């Protein structure tokens, strides 16, 4: 059975290889091939899943050792996989959503002549992401980690002819690299501490290591997570990443890749449990990002950027939960999965809208689209309800649990976190409602563009709507399915561990509070955008609004400090290299030349001068010899 694990990765990898090296002759069948292989991977996943359900206890964890990767004295890195409940959850999510989005893309990318390559990249992403979640040691995980980074780079920059896209792609990769730096340092620390970096030994012997070391490792892992999951302070790339085709945003920048950070932290639970300081930092990062993303989400008029902000904030929830330790891991993952469904659904919906609106992304130029694209409206609506946590839908369960867990942290911390999470819920409700209203309600606000062709909103083809519907189903029922009888908890407990945190307030109260803030958020949004018509050009807005539109000035900071500073640094270094380092050498050469030129003058052509030098030389010779004898 375990031999199937490699197949999970192999299938999409093969697809990537074939599609990218295949050349134009594959253009006609490329997308089908890509989708097929993704589906294969999904099927394999399902098979493994059913097999896993058949087993029980530790038997559920499968290992597959392919070969020794880097055998060097005192350093052992293997190409080996580990499939346990946690990985399995991700496998299903990745392959499932992935397959759907492949299908969606068939329609969405129909008119792009480079569609084959697009599917190649998508397959590459699947392979890398699966490698990430299936690796049984941190170094292999690192390979997947950078692999998804590469895939996201390629996909964000898929429309390379647009400078903005190319820049966004580069930015994403660079910011991620900073995170990766953290991961590699973490691995080095593990190596020096434990002499290995395989999950088993490392997580098994955290007890013997000093807390200092563990904290260091934890913080470095967090840095990595921040990079990949767009958490403050490394969140700046996610917004720009929306330059990529919408399916990409849905798959990579909503459902799967960006949640890798959560996976990393949950996977390394043993380390964090033993390093409370690190955990605290994790929680703080989560909380801050949660609000940060939410606020940004409120101000954006670009539908995708708004959703991106929301993604950021939702992942903030997960990170926060993961930071809570055993009481939170499970819910972090649960929210991750549900979020995977509804956020992917939302993005696909957005994509469908753009598809019908000539790729217009400014929500202020939408309005009243519900009658033009009903299916999109419904699926998007369901996703909307799910994310704001409408009772009974996925988001309701998963987010609710996180808020409870936050309170259950106990002490003032608990209260603060709880408050933050609640506030976050309120804001979520607000900005999602805003998106909903701006897009589907009100009267139509689009006009012909300068070339005079007005958009003709229409429903998207079947290949796009079906995935949306499926995802909508998921976002409606997943949460409930997981929560009934704590299915999900029991499912993950063997891996992440779980103990129920007793909140200072009863679960019911928490739920009630959530409902209240939810209603408030929605109401406020309706007051601002539902009641009165929306101006097509955005009003100047308050200081906060303007800041939020600019991602809370975080980019400007980067630009001024890092980019400008870096440019100055390199420019001055180039100068230094030329004048100083090189100059010293050239200077020496020149000085010899000058000396030579001067000495040359002595050779003035007069025999008598030469005689003088001989005479003087002799005199010196004699004097020196006599002197030698004298002393």
């Amino acid at each position, binding site marked *: 059975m375990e031999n199937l694990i490699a197949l999970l990765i192999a299938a999409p990898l093969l697809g990537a290889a074939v599609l990218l090296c295949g050349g134009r002759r594959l253009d006609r069948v490329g997308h089908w091939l890509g989708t097929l292989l993704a589906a294969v991977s999904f099927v394999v996943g399902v098979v493994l899943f059913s097999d896993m359900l058949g087993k029980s206890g530790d038997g559920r964890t499968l290992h597959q050792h392919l070969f020794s990767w880097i055998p060097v004295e005192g350093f052992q890195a293997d190409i080996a996989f580990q499939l346990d409940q946690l990985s399995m959850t991700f496998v299903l999510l990745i392959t499932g959503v992935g397959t759907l989005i492949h299908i969606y893309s068939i329609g969405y990318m129909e008119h792009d002549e480079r569609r084959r390559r697009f599917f190649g990249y998508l397959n590459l992403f699947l392979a890398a992401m699966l490698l990430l979640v299936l690796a049984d040691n941190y170094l292999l995980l690192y390979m997947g980690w950078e692999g998804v980074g590469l895939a996201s780079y390629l996909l964000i920059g898929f429309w390379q002819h647009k400078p903005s896209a190319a820049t966004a792609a580069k930015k994403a990769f660079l910011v991620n690299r900073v995170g990766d730096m953290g991961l590699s340092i973490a691995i080095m620390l593990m190596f020096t501490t434990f002499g290995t970096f395989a999950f088993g030994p490392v997580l098994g012997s955290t007890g013997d290591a000093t807390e200092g070391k563990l904290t260091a490792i934890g913080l470095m892992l967090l840095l990595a997570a921040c990079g990949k999951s767009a958490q403050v302070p490394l969140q700046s790339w996610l917004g720009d990443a929306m330059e990529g085709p919408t399916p990409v945003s849905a798959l990579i920048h909503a459902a799967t890749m960006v949640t890798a950070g959560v996976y990393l932290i949950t996977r390394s639970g043993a380390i964090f449990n033993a390093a409370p300081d690190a955990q605290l930092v994790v929680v703080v990062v989560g909380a801050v990002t949660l609000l940060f993303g939410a606020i940004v989400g409120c101000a954006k008029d670009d539908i995708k950027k708004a959703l991106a902000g929301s993604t950021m904030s939702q992942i903030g929830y997960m990170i926060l939960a993961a930071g809570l330790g055993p009481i939170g891991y499970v819910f972090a993952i649960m929210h991750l999965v549900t979020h995977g469904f509804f956020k992917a659904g939302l993005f696909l919906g957005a994509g469908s809208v753009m598809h019908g609106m000539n790729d217009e992304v400014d929500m202020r130029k939408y309005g009243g689209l519900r009658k033009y694209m009903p299916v999109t409206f419904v699926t998007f609506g369901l996703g909307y309800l799910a994310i704001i946590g409408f009772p009974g839908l996925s988001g309701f369960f998963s987010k609710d649990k996180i808020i409870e867990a936050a309170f259950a942290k106990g002490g003032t911390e608990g209260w603060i976190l709880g408050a933050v999470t609640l506030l976050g819920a309120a804001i979520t409700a607000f900005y999602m409602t805003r998106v909903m209203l701006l897009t589907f309600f009100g009267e139509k606000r689009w006009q012909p563009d300068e070339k005079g062709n007005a958009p003709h909103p229409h429903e998207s083809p079947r290949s796009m709507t079906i995935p949306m519907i499926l995802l909508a189903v998921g976002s409606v029922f997943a949460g409930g399915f997981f929560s009934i009888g704590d299915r999900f908890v029991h499912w993950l407990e063997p891996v992440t561990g779980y103990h129920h945190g007793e909140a200072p307030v009863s679960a019911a109260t928490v739920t009630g509070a959530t409902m209240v803030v939810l209603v408030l958020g929605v109401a406020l949004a309706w007051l601002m955008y539902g009641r009165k018509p929306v101006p097509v050009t955005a009003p100047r807005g308050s200081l906060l609004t303007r800041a939020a539109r600019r991602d809370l000035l975080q980019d400007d900071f980067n630009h001024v400090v890092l980019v400008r500073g870096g440019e100055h640094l390199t420019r001055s270094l180039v100068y230094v290299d030329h004048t100083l380092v090189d100059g010293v050498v050239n200077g020496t050469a020149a000085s010899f030349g000058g000396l030579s030129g001067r000495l*040359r*003058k002595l*050779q*003035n*052509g*007069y*025999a*008598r001068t030469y*005689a*003088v030098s001989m*005479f003087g030389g002799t005199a010196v010779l004699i004097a020196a010899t006599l002197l030698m004898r004298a002393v």
Partner: protein
Amino acid sequence: MNPVYYLYLASLLFTIGAAGVLIRRNAIVVFMCVELMLNACNLAFVTFSRLHGNLDGQIIAFFTMVVAAAEVVVGLAIIVSVFRSRHSASVDDASLMKL
């Protein structure tokens, strides 16, 4: 009398010769100065020969004279040819090659 005085004389002559070489411009004169130096050497040889009571020095003096003569032959040949082509025997005029 003490032969050492001859040595002083010899060194004096030698130095005068050397000085002449450094100072005088006319090639012939310069050359004569060299001859003077050689003769100074001869004087020294003879003196030492006397001093040591063996005749090597005196013999060498003869050799030196022969050599000097040979030098005259060669030297004058060269100097004369230069003089004919340049119409000047000044060593300072012969400074085409320098630096």
